[in-house]
């Protein structure tokens, strides 16, 4: 006979349950911060408006990094924008996710030999989902978002934890390419 006695859960199990409940809310309400660095950003208006309507998935644009959950990096990043991207990423409140758009963020795309454009985004900040293409179809973009939701459900969207665990590695890469993340000149106090 099975015991009907109530067996109390350990603290870990309780935390896990809460985290799963939180995951349900997080994946159904992804607020995005669009960092429109390159031409891939032109795929976002059709994804947001009546053609593909991402609001039905609970996604919506947000104005500031503090309020947002997903950072969309749409296209090539020059050294100057990469610095701003790193500040922005570090300002977002956890849990946070990153989606990289286009071949430029994957391997440099058509700017692979430029002196000003980085080649591999995941050297500098953790990327959860890449959407390939130059530029990606809007279907591919929507597919990337649903993939991200699936990853949050399976608890594989661990980029932000990775950024904490391997922070030294990321910081070292940033310094290697950028020299200095926070520049000091007359435009910054």
């Amino acid at each position, binding site marked *: 006979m099975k015991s009907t006695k109530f067996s109390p859960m350990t603290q870990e199990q309780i935390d896990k349950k809460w985290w799963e409940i939180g995951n349900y809310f997080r994946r*159904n309400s992804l607020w995005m911060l669009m960092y429109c660095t390159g031409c891939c950003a032109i795929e976002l208006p059709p994804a947001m408006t009546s053609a593909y309507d991402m609001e039905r998935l609970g996604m919506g644009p947000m104005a500031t990094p503090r309020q947002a959950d997903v950072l969309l990096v749409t296209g090539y990043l020059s050294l100057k924008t990469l610095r701003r991207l790193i500040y922005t990423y570090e300002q977002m409140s956890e849990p946070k996710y990153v989606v990289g758009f286009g071949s430029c963020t994957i391997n440099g795309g058509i700017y692979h030999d430029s002196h000003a454009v980085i080649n591999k985004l995941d050297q500098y900040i953790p990327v959860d989902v890449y959407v390939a293409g130059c530029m990606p179809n809007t279907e591919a973009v929507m597919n990337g978002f649903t993939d991200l939701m699936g990853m949050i459900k399976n608890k594989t969207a661990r980029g932000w934890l990775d950024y904490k665990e391997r922070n030294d590695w990321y910081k070292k890469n940033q310094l290697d390419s950028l020299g200095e993340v926070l520049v000091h000149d007359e435009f910054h106090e």
Partner: protein
Amino acid sequence: MVVNILVGLGVALFGFVLQTAMGGINRKIVARVQKRIGPKWYQEFIDIFKLFSKRSVSHGWIFDFGVIMALGGIIATAMFMPVTANIIAFEGYDNFFIFVYLLAVGMLGMAMSASGSGNPLASIGVMRALTTMLAYEVPFMIVVMTIIKLTGGTSSVSEIAAFQQIAGNNWFIIALPLGGIVAIISLMGMLGKKPFETYIAPAEIASGPMVEYGGKQLGMLFVMHEITVFIEVSLFIHLFLGGAATLGVYLLKYFLVYTALNLISSVYARFKIDQVVVFFYKWPLFMAVTQAIIAIYLGWVI
């Protein structure tokens, strides 16, 4: 006394649930206007609970305390709100001026906290919010004063509602047509709907006072905002639409008012802040004064 407080908290909770659900339904309706499918009707609940499940940073104790003060002030205001003729927590205390003053506590809390964040855009947003408040309050107050004069000097919200019901459902929005228009415009200003959305302005000042909030603080501000909308729409229903005898009538009126405002706002673009002030001090003020003269000195009430 304890029972009263419990009923009051119940009213605040009811307002939060009602307005959050209405907000979701209205997002769906606006999406349909724009030929989209739109989110689920409970999307706003998901958003708020998600915000509470996130980790957030603090910018000092004024920042945190201001948020709590804003939420507390608004819940305290909502506790005095009569829902129908029978559901009312503190009988005799539902004075119109209590709402005006207590709402200011919530607003000040938010202003304090936003300035505590130290972001210049937040200060601009707070400045604009206060300027807008100054603009819409003058015409709205004149119309409400007229109503108080007509009902024989009582400023109790539920008594004004009862007055309209006793007089054979003679709603003030019909009895005072000019004043009704002024009240609708002012209500849109209060709720921050589209033409008067100047102090949120996501594309211009990055959502104004809320610029530095994230996670739990933003969640509290969202709850506060929902309850504020509940208070303002309820005030409009009681003062101008004859209140509600039963809960069903109340829900119906609430839905109609809020949806109509959203539909109006979905086809407008945003004013600049100086345009908002000039607009409110031009036609609504003129109409409100005309209405007061017609109703009080000439005695022409439909």
